[in-house]
């Protein structure tokens, strides 16, 4: 077993408290276990479907684990994983769409807690929906948030299926426009 310098300088590990800020993972297995959920959530929030989110999560860990620096601290590891995720997502969109549909922001707070990384999506979506007219908001809620089929959504709203389809696409256009305005 290779011992890091950090450990050599410490008092005997059996006694005494260990500083949490300098915490490192014992091995790759721990890195994976502790971070796989938030990496997946992050990716899912950026692509919106399970098969791609799984592939991208796998790519992040396949890419990141081997070159991971010995004795990197927990926050350093998380930041590194996030940066890897950022690159992996960028190349995914480049390949699929020839442009970036969604991105992972580079500037993250120094202390990253896995729970808080996941996403601010629900809040963002709520405020986005609130800016839409009632029937537009309703169709998007039914289709995207509540997993209704077009037919079910149409009957819920008391409109024809064709009408529901048109509503949905107009609503999405308006949501996209309003999203653009909100960010610019």
């Amino acid at each position, binding site marked *: *077993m290779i011992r*890091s310098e*950090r*450990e050599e300088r*410490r008092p005997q*590990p059996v006694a005494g408290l*260990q*500083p949490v800020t*300098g915490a*490192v*993972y*014992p*091995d790759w*297995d*721990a890195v*994976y*276990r*502790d971070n*796989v*959920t938030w990496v*997946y*959530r992050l990716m*899912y*929030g950026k*692509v*919106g*479907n399970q*098969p*791609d*989110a*799984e592939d991208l*999560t796998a790519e992040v860990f*396949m890419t990141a*684990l081997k070159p991971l620096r*010995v*004795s*990197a601290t927990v926050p350093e590891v998380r930041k590194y994983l996030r940066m890897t995720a950022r690159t992996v997502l960028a190349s995914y969109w480049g*390949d*699929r*769409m*020839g*442009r970036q*549909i*969604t991105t992972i922001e580079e500037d993250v707070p120094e202390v990253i807690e896995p729970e808080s990384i*996941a996403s601010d*999506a629900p809040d963002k979506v709520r405020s*986005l929906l609130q800016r839409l007219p009632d029937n537009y908001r309703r169709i998007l809620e039914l*289709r*995207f948030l509540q*997993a209704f089929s077009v037919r079910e959504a149409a009957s819920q709203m008391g409109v024809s299926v064709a009408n529901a389809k*048109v509503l*949905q*696409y107009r609503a*999405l*256009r308006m*949501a*996209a*426009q309003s*999203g*653009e305005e909100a960010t610019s």
Partner: protein
Amino acid sequence: MSNRTVRRFVEGLLRGQRTEQARPDDFEAEQMKAAIELRAARLGSDAPREEFVTDLHRRLAAEMSDGQPAVSHSRWAPRRREVVIGGSVAAASAAAGLVVGRNLLAPTVTQQATPPTQTELHPNAGTWRPVGASVDLPEGGALAFDLGSVNGFVHRAHAKLEAVSGVCTHQGCKLWLDAPESRLRCPCHSTSFSLEGTTVTHQLPVAPPPLPKFQVREINGVIEVFAPTEPA
């Protein structure tokens, strides 16, 4: 009104399919982004599948062992059960912020092979503290106690007493006693433990470790638990 690129993308998205190739313009891309955000906000849809987490772990284990010829392959390719069980130990120690100070990439076969055994709490300094009267704890019953420094549940089964911690091993929420079901339940993530402290059900990617046990005894009709001494 509605263009084909966005429509195809949204239909696939709502069916949970992979994203197909397309070449959207600015506004189409903006609509796709809005669609993704909406879809991803659906409740409960963003947790990774347990099968995926386990399978990726296995692939990573194989990948990581490629550069580690010194380690015998069989030890690096544990069966599924060992992976799942061994992993929870590592996750627990990481979550607790323990610093082991080992080489990050060094193989730690021992961790993978060791199942998370139930540990007994041995405080540096402790005393026997009364938690209830023997008569209050019939055969098959359970009793909650809170001694300030620790809390937990003591139960009597087959005329033997057993006491376990009342704090969930996942993120430290306080367990409650579901007496009719003989379960200790966590209010945070629906994890449940048996009265003996073993993990019974959970919805997490990795099973939380079992609850630590307390030393418990019965003297002159009083049940006592060995608990850490309160700070002066």
